[in-house]
């Protein structure tokens, strides 16, 4: 064997290893939890929904102004939403933030039962029975959560369940900064 092939042979394990590392690293950076939203940094899209808490006053994007809001998109048929409701109750009890909800493609009846059984963390609750508003927000599925600042701009988006860790490491730091 010539010197060149010997060298190549000697270095081949590390070359292959680096290649594998590269793909693993790329795999890591494809992180499903961070879905970049086209809406980040933009004002919330205009909408108007019947508020199930107070049917006389519709919920619109104007209601976000003046305070920091946690906007939670969910549905009573969504298993994960049932799981995380307790966490939202916890947040409502212990943190100074108003939680607004948008119910995605759901029946008022089952929403009422859900909230009656598991507790109601929402101060306002829009009923998006046809799923159009969720579509405007670019929601992929339930549950999904947005942080909206005092000016009504979407600042942060979380896809999936909110648990203690997500709340403490992602959402609450963002909200704390805005306040």
């Amino acid at each position, binding site marked *: 064997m010539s010197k060149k092939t010997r060298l190549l042979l000697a270095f081949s394990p590390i070359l292959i290893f680096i290649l594998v590392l590269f793909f693993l690293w790329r795999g890591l950076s494809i992180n*499903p939890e961070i879905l970049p939203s086209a809406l980040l940094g933009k004002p919330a899209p205009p909408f108007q929904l019947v508020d199930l808490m107070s049917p006389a006053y519709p919920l619109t994007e104007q209601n976000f102004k003046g305070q920091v809001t946690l906007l939670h998109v969910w549905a009573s048929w969504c298993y994960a939403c049932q799981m995380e409701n307790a966490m939202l109750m916890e947040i409502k009890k212990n943190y100074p933030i108003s939680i607004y909800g948008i119910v995605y493609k759901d029946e008022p009846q089952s929403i009422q039962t859900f909230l009656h059984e598991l507790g109601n963390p929402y101060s306002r609750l829009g009923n998006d029975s046809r799923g159009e508003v969720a579509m405007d927000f670019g929601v*992929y599925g339930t549950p999904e959560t947005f942080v909206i600042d005092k000016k009504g701009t979407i600042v942060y988006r979380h*896809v999936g369940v909110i648990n203690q860790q997500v709340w403490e490491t992602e959402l609450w730091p963002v909200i704390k900064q805005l306040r």
Partner: protein
Amino acid sequence: MLKLNKLQTRRLYYLLALMLGLALAAGLILYSLKQNINLFFTPSQALQANLPAGHRFRLGGQVKPGSVIREKNRLQVHFILTDLKRELPVTYSGILPDLFREGNGAIAEGSWGTASQSKKTFIATEILAKHDENYMPRAMYEELRKK
């Protein structure tokens, strides 16, 4: 000198045999990979991709609430998978996994049915649901993320 040359030619043969074996193995591996890859689509993508009937792929989405219908006297199940943009009817014959639930994510493996062109149905031979309370299959996240 002659002896060394003999050794060298022998080595050459071994090397050639080894390379032939490697090439054969690589060919076999690539062939099998090509045969056994299942593409993953969301309902919108699947409708766009327009694959022929019988071509196997995986369809991932959320099981539309209220869409699961069981046939009487048979193990046939019909439901709708949705990515919240398009919806696709799926037919499956068999027992659904424990974590298959309305509103949950599921992946169906199978192909287009041949029945009619106007209303496409996905015939699933296998339903996968993760052993996790995640609300959506991960592959779907990724597909959706790209848009």
